[in-house]
């Protein structure tokens, strides 16, 4: 068992209380920061710790904070979310049900680091219970003096609210999320000005993944070196909340050192493959990553190592497929999801994804032709011209199906049926 940092207060079927969080050192980082460190110093500690954004891009959180320049206007905002619509991803939900005050302290500290006045936690409707938990615990944190005016007797004031979403995948895109919070239709913005300069209500706004922020209190308390040493690989730092789902014995969310090997995560923590099922492939970081060929079963799961094998760590949500699952059908399911969740605003996404869906549907139904394969590739290329990263992400399962499982696609075409169906 590796040291548990984010899940140190995890209990079966119970949420840690503020007292339990405090007994484990909770809110000490906030006290330290306010008494000892300037906002700039907090930024520097987080930069030194190399805290990479856990939402998928891996951009260093401290550098993002630093991009809010001194002369940028006020008020400034912090946004985080418990929205994770990425299929396979449920870490934020587990985190909320484990230790909500770690989320709250992480947000207050990030607010302090960029001199923000308010923070917003954006919550999807299927996580209504998370919204209720957070609202209840926010009230407790306010009463304890950690939130509101003059926090812990300092000059720093910070307010934190829960914003309920109506439920759409695209709200996970930064500019779309800002639009959603402002009560506008959640379309991404084409070539936006950086939100750290002009975001919510045209004011500097920092968006961080929730998992990124829960690391901040620990970094402030224990230092950058300690945080870096938590990881297994040199280029990464900290621990990671890996979600494992699919054909494994114990699907779940596990806190492990960043860079833990995929094989170890699946075999030891997720209990290995279901009896009679063999590992065929996985999506290593949610639906908008690529099918990982079996030869990389030992890959170290951090941003750089997964990139080196031509894939993406994404959210670290590992969806495991077995030898009996048809990958054409799986990709059809994934693209169906993306077609439905596309906001429809820009043409490459709105038009190319349904086109791809129809071709895949025909292949799966036994009506495929060889000439579909280059069309699928060409259509996938077109999506890179869309406004946001949604559509290119949507085509990652498609292009990796063609790259790594082309034989399976050919079998469908040649046999004029799905070989997995009797």
């Amino acid at each position, binding site marked *: 068992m590796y040291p548990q940092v984010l899940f140190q207060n995890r209990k079966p079927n119970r949420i840690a209380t503020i007292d339990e969080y405090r007994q484990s050192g909770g809110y000490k980082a906030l006290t330290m920061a306010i008494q000892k460190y300037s906002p700039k110093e907090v930024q520097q500690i987080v930069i030194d710790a190399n805290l990479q954004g856990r939402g998928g891009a891996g951009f260093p959180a401290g550098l993002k904070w630093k991009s809010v320049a001194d002369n940028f206007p006020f008020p400034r905002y912090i946004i985080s979310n418990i929205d994770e*619509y990425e*299929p*396979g991803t449920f870490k934020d939900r587990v985190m909320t049900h484990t230790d909500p005050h770690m989320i709250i302290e992480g947000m207050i500290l990030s607010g302090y680091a960029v001199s923000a006045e308010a923070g917003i936690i954006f919550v999807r409707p299927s996580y*209504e*219970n998370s919204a209720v938990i957070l609202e209840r615990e926010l009230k407790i944190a306010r009463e304890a003096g950690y939130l509101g005016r003059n926090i812990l007797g300092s000059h720093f004031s910070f307010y934190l609210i829960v914003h309920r*979403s109506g439920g759409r995948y695209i709200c996970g895109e930064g500019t779309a999320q800002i639009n959603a919070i*402002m*009560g506008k239709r959640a379309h991404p913005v084409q070539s936006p000005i950086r939100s750290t300069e002009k975001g919510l209500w045209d004011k500097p706004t920092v968006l961080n993944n929730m998992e990124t922020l829960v690391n901040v209190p620990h970094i402030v308390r224990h230092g950058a070196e300690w945080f870096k040493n938590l990881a297994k690989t040199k280029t990464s730092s900290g621990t990671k909340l890996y979600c494992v789902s699919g054909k494994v014995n114990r699907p779940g969310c596990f806190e492990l050192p960043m860079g833990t090997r995929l094989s170890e995560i699946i075999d030891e923590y997720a209990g290995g493959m279901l009896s009679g099922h063999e590992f065929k492939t996985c999506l290593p970081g949610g639906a908008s990553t690529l099918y990982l060929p079996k030869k990389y079963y030992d890959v170290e799961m951090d941003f750089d190592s997964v990139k080196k094998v031509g894939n993406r760590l994404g959210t670290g949500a590992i969806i495991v*497929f077995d030898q009996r699952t048809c990958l054409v059908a799986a990709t059809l399911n994934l693209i169906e999801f993306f077609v*439905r969740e596309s906001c429809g605003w820009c043409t490459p996404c709105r038009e190319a994804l349904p086109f791809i869906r129809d071709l895949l549907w025909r292949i799966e139904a036994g009506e495929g032709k060889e000439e579909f394969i280059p069309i699928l590739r060409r259509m996938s290329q077109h999506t890179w011209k869309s406004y946001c990263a949604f559509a290119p992400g949507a085509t990652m399962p498609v292009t990796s199906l063609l790259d790594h499982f082309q034989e399976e696609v050919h079998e469908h075409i040649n046999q004029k049926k799905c070989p997995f169906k009797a």
Partner: protein
Amino acid sequence: MLPRELLEILQKRIASVEHPRELAVDTMLASQNHYGYLSDEALEEAARLLDMTPLELEELATFYDFIYREPVGRFVIHVCDGVVCWMNGYDSVLDYLLRKLGIKPGETTEDGLFTILPTACIGYCDLSPAMLINGRAYGPLTPEKIDDILNRLRAEPPKPRMAR
């Protein structure tokens, strides 16, 4: 019309923020929670509260999966059709539910109790195949579990409404 008590709560909240439309989704959800779904009249009423045009609010209402612009049953069953649930038997779960309730996706049972809506990944991949009913998640689903859940919901008394 919304009951006075609820109306006052909403008006107070809206008055407390700088930009009323940031509460658009909250207001629609509150109205929907009261009426059961967001009818044309409910949408217009919510738009007036938010100082938005009905069209502006409609743009949002039709965008979101969990705002119901058509009547739904007392229990809205969102069956997850995300890739993990699909892999773990979504088809048979949906098929079983449809046969059991005698409806098609998007329809409501004659007694007004259940509506079935296939839904994008609900974030319960560790409990797949999963579904969400009135905000509560259930899984991993089996026919026996589904029977048990439906029976328990049928026996649940309707929730009391605020006085008008």
